[in-house]
């Protein structure tokens, strides 16, 4: 053997698995950005599945790794991976009209994870009550829209009313659909948490 192997500090299996799951969840969320569905309530604004990714990150990875997954999503997008809406990428998106939403995702996922799992250790999401899951996702949605609207308002120098209408109300109804979808995914047999 030609290399001195004593100095190599291996990343433990558990950390490696969590890192990889977080990275793949971030990539999945980027893939969701390409998938749009007709909005049942407002056909003019199609639904993209990205926020579903925030829900799933919190629910399946917990507060720490779920939040980390969203940090990876935002960072990879800022550094050029086409993961934002419309396959967008670049640091500019953070300073754009949807920058507030992007910045909110790590906080929202961490909050959802904390409500679903508590702060010590992960639980099996299938065993979590419907009320708790819905409450977690609703709280996450509030964080997303609060930051999203405030940043839109600040960046684009509009009135607050314009920001609420333009960046919030047009999209909020679709979030209920995504919450229902996330509930269905948690209850389906297809996905195993561990």
């Amino acid at each position, binding site marked *: 053997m030609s290399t001195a192997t004593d100095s190599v500090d291996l990343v433990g299996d558990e950390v490696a698995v969590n890192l990889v799951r977080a*990275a793949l969840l971030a990539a999945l969320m980027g893939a969701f950005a390409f998938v749009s569905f007709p909005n049942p309530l407002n056909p003019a604004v199609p639904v993209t599945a990205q926020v*579903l990714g925030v829900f799933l990150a919190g629910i399946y990875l917990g507060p720490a790794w779920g939040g980390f997954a969203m940090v990876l999503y935002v960072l*990879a997008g800022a550094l050029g*991976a*086409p993961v934002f809406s419309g396959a967008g990428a670049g640091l500019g998106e953070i300073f754009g009209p949807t920058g507030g939403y992007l910045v909110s995702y790590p906080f929202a996922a961490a909050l959802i994870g904390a409500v679903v799992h508590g702060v010590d250790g992960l639980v099996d999401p299938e065993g979590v009550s419907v009320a708790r899951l819905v409450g977690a996702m609703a709280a996450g949605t509030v964080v997303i829209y609060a930051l999203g609207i405030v940043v839109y308002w600040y*960046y684009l120098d509009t009135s607050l009313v314009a920001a609420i209408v333009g960046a919030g109300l047009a999209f909020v109804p679709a979030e209920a659909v995504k919450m229902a*979808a996330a509930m269905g995914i948690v209850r389906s047999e297809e996905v195993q948490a561990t």
Partner: protein
Amino acid sequence: MLGYEPGDSLAHRLDPRTKLAVQLAFAAAAFAHTDPRGLAMLTGVTALALASARLSPVSVIWGYRFLLPLLAAAVLFELVTLGPPWIELEAAADPLLASYRTLLIVAVAAGYVRTTPARESRAAVQWAVPGKPGRLLGAGVGLVFRFLPLLRRDLAAIRDAERARLGDERSTRERLETVGAAGLRRAFARADRLAMALSARCFSWNATLPRIRFRAVDVPAVLLAAGLGASMVV
């Protein structure tokens, strides 16, 4: 879609850290000087940045066309009022300047996206965030770049299968649920195999970073970043 392409433009030869510094300084300066004169000067800087990346403004606008309706909506909302005088040009001035500012920042960032490969971005992340957190962020960002095309293909295949089986008659919720569940299941299956492969290849905390280094060509760009930063206090 704008993405990295190999090349030998000036921007390709710059250190990723230099390019990130220019972007951040540019954004800060643009927020500090959101007035016609400031934005006119920054338009010149943007032209310079795009030229150094050999990127045309048309392809940038095309690449970010999804932002345009959001920006236009902000301007229109302030421009049009629900009663006399119906049109308020003055109220629309601020959102118009802000929207233009957004376009400039996005365009400068597009230069980075086009000219910086994932491995250099990863090295810049680990330079900026030392230690284990930086290693996790750097490795994670690299994996997002690598697996995004794969998972996009997964989702496309899932949707095709779904359409072939059930047509478009199911509700949005049901379709989101099917695509989400199948996508998540495949992503986790890939993750388990990938984690095994990482361990087999000695995934370590103290790995050698990809090469990045400041060179003579970085000097003018660093000065530009410093100038943009200094403009905020002028």
